[in-house]
């Protein structure tokens, strides 16, 4: 190693050791940034591994977009704090750099002193951050995947660590490139004269004839270093905005809408083949037995209901046939591709067009089951329906014109018996099940009353049983009955409103947990940035404070001024966070929420509301604490101090 290098190395090393508390702050910042990168990488790669286990290797665009915007957000928030820390440390050491310059250090030599320190801080911070981040990723992964049937695979891909480390390193390098250049460019003469350098105000004069007040002084102080004020406010506001936005997202998910659509009763039970995806319902298993229904009906405060299902040949009538023909020939909406890609659908379609008959799904519903339906055309008249002369067409409520297959009063025929269409309804999943079979590929489904159903299709077993039970105890008792039957028959399965609700909460948590985690870390970074900025500003202004004291400003007045400064920061931060949250909430979040049918966009500022007092308290407490630390020595000593 030649002498120059050893000298910059030595200076860098000594300076590193001389600034223990500053190093701690920087290392914490580097750790937090690395933690965020590692968490995102761990989860991203683990999700890919989990998908690969399911046989799906495609990464969809939206998750790629989320991944990239997450990385960019982390880069920004990392830059905001690390850049700020280095900027401040260069300002603090400006006399040191100026002196080196006077003694003949070149720009690059001074820059490398700073870069070496940055590298050394990374060497400490990044490994710790990688460890913590991987741990957080491992903890979050099961929550993220809770709603999926997939078993979470925690990736051990070295790319996680390499990628996260590279990104963290890049963030640090970008962040200290400018401060390093600034340190190198220091004019020696400016450095020799430099006092407290807390000014980037370009104004030459200040018009004011009013006597100043403490609160106005505080405002002026905020404007002294606008860049620093901006980075500090931005880094806090970013975290707060993220927390608020994900809360809005979580808040917008509507459990009631979900339950209404998935679970129409307190308890529902059926053969497993009805609920498990991709399995066809086998109605030869006599899973839901009449005994089971009787036992449950015997529980006090209980109303039970049943649904039957079978497939049957039907004539859907001319209106429906015309609608089906138009629907599948509509090139623009593209359902034609369904016909060309699914053979069963094509066969059914051709058969319908040639013979006017189709294989339909037929549900037998009692009054309780029928009332769970969302009637979107016509009206459910229980008495008329019970006569067995009427049928409901089943469809999906919110598909607009494509939901309407029939007109009220249409005549259809199921296995030789005529029915009149009373209307159309959508059944909740807990009643309808996931019965997409090849035979009913065109999706023709009807609901008729149980009596009529059993008359036409005698000996069909019950597909599903439901029970609405009043009182917690009775509910437990009813559940217990189903559970005891489940022990005897492995094909029996039960869903309760509670399991659906908790399943929903898990799904929602999966959507927002990563956002919350990043938001919390970014908010922490913001607070760290606030503490660091406030502390260094107060240390840098020690002499100025001593000077103010010497001309008659009392300590309580100085403290009051600092508290005003802190509160001003907090208020600016809150206003910016509010504007950011409004903007992001009403654009990105509303867009993403509106795509989900279980969500009902509900804007909220609750997290900001909760965090506002916390921020104000911190804004008062931190400056006072920092100020206390600088006041240990006498006024004269502090006045004399040069740097």
């Amino acid at each position, binding site marked *: 190693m030649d002498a*120059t290098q050893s000298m910059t190395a030595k*200076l860098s090393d000594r300076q590193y*050791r001389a600034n223990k508390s500053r190093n701690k702050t920087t290392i914490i910042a580097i750790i937090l940034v690395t933690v965020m990168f590692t968490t995102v990488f761990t989860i991203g790669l683990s999700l890919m591994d989990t998908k690969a286990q399911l046989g799906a290797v495609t990464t969809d665009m939206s998750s790629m977009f989320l991944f990239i915007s997450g990385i960019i957000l982390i880069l920004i928030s990392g830059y905001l704090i690390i850049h700020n820390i280095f900027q401040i440390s260069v300002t603090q050491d400006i006399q040191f750099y100026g002196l080196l310059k006077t003694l*003949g250090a070149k720009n690059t030599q001074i820059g490398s002193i700073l870069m070496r320190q940055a590298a050394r801080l990374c060497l400490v911070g990044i490994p710790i951050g990688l460890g913590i981040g991987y741990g957080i990723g491992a903890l979050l992964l099961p929550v993220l995947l809770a709603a999926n049937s997939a078993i979470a695979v925690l990736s051990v891909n070295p790319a996680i660590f390499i990628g996260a480390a590279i990104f963290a390193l890049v963030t640090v390098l970008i962040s200290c490139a400018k401060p390093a250049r600034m340190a190198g460019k220091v004019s020696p003469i400016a450095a020799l004269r430099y006092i407290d350098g807390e000014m980037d105000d370009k104004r030459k004069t200040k018009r004011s004839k009013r006597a100043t007040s403490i609160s106005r002084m505080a405002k002026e102080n905020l404007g002294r270093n606008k860049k620093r004020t901006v980075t500090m406010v931005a880094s806090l506001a970013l975290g707060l905005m993220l927390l608020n936005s994900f809360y809005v997202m979580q808040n917008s998910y509507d459990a009631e809408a979900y339950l209404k659509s998935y679970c129409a009763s307190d308890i529902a039970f059926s053969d497993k083949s009805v609920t498990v995806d991709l399995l066809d319902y086998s109605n030869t298993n006599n899973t839901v037995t009449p005994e089971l229904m009787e036992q449950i009906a015997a529980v006090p405060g209980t109303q039970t209901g049943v649904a039957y299902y079978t497939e049957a040949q039907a004539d859907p009538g001319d209106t429906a046939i015309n609608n089906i023909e138009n629907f599948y020939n509509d090139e623009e909406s593209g359902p034609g591709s369904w016909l060309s890609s699914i053979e069963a659908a094509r066969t059914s379609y051709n058969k319908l067009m040639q013979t006017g008959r189709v294989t339909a799904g037929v549900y037998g519903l009692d009054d309780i089951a029928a009332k769970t339906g969302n009637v979107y055309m016509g009206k459910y008249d229980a008495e008329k329906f019970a006569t067995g002369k009427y049928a409901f067409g089943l469809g999906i409520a919110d598909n607009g014109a494509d939901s309407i297959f029939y007109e009220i009063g249409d005549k259809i025929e199921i296995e030789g018996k005529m029915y009149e269409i009373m209307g159309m309804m959508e059944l909740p999943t807990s009643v309808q099940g996931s019965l997409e079979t090849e035979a009913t590929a065109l999706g023709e489904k009807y609901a008729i009353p149980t009596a009529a159903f059993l008359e036409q299709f005698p000996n069909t077993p019950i597909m599903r049983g439901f029970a609405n039970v009043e009182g917690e105890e009775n509910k437990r008792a009813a559940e217990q009955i189903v559970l005891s039957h489940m022990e005897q028959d492995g094909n029996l399965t039960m869903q309760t409103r509670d399991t659906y609700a908790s399943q929903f909460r898990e799904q929602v948590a999966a959507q927002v947990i990563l956002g919350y985690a990043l938001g919390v870390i970014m908010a922490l970074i913001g607070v760290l940035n606030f503490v660091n900025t406030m502390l260094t500003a107060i240390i840098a202004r020690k002499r100025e404070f001593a000077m103010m004291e010497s001309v008659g400003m009392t300590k309580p007045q100085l403290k009051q001024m600092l508290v005003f400064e802190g509160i001003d920061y907090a208020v600016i931060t809150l206003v910016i966070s509010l504007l950011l949250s409004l903007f992001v909430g009403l654009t990105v979040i509303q867009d993403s929420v509106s795509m989900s049918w279980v969500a009902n966009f509900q804007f909220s500022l609750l997290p900001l509301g909760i965090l506002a007092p916390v921020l104000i308290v911190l804004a008062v407490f931190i400056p006072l604490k920092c100020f206390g630390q600088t006041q240990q020595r006498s006024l004269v000593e502090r006045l004399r101090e040069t740097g």
Partner: protein
Amino acid sequence: MSILQAKEVKKHYGEDENLVKALDGVSITIMPGEFVSIVGASGSGKSTLLHMLGGLDNPTSGSVEIGGQDISQLSDDKLTVFRRRQIGFVFQNYNLVPILNVFENIVLPVELDGKKVERDYIDRIISLLGLESKLNSLPSNLSGGQQQRVAIARALATKPSILLADEPTGNLDSHTSMDVLNLLQMTNRQFSQTVVMITHNDEIANLADRKLHMADGRIMQPLEAKYCGRQNMRMGAWA
């Protein structure tokens, strides 16, 4: 042949009604081996002149030549290298690097230049300045006089052709001040070092070969200034 020459150097700050003429057309010529002191009231422009002479700051107009090289023509980095080879600085507040010990402080400019430290030469300076026993001390453990000795040693370490001292005794008591001044005189003789020193202490200024008075950003003519030269004064210097 002069070693240091300033021609019509002006330094103005601010504009219009705020215009401050820190230097208002200063021309001086300094010969090799000369010991020149500059005196003047606070605000007379003497520090600004020293900064210009040392290439720490750029003049608004005029030129500064060191050994025939116009330093305003040099780029920032070239000027830095030029400065560390040609000029040593001594400041009123010593400006030692607090994180380096005495020896490291002394050899810092040499190492920054990427040169090998000449132990013989450095040892000579160290013993001349009486710092042998303090080499491992950190600056904060030294007295003001000791710190200034280290600063002088550091200024001499690269064997610069010119030593610029800005109120080197400003923070020292009168006894220590004389010590430091004797050391400057000694190096001036022993290493044929050109020394330019700023002071507001007339007694100290009188020890120089030549004394220049500054007021309002200008050098006063020798005849109008109180003249107090020494016998070995080189009359040709400002001819």
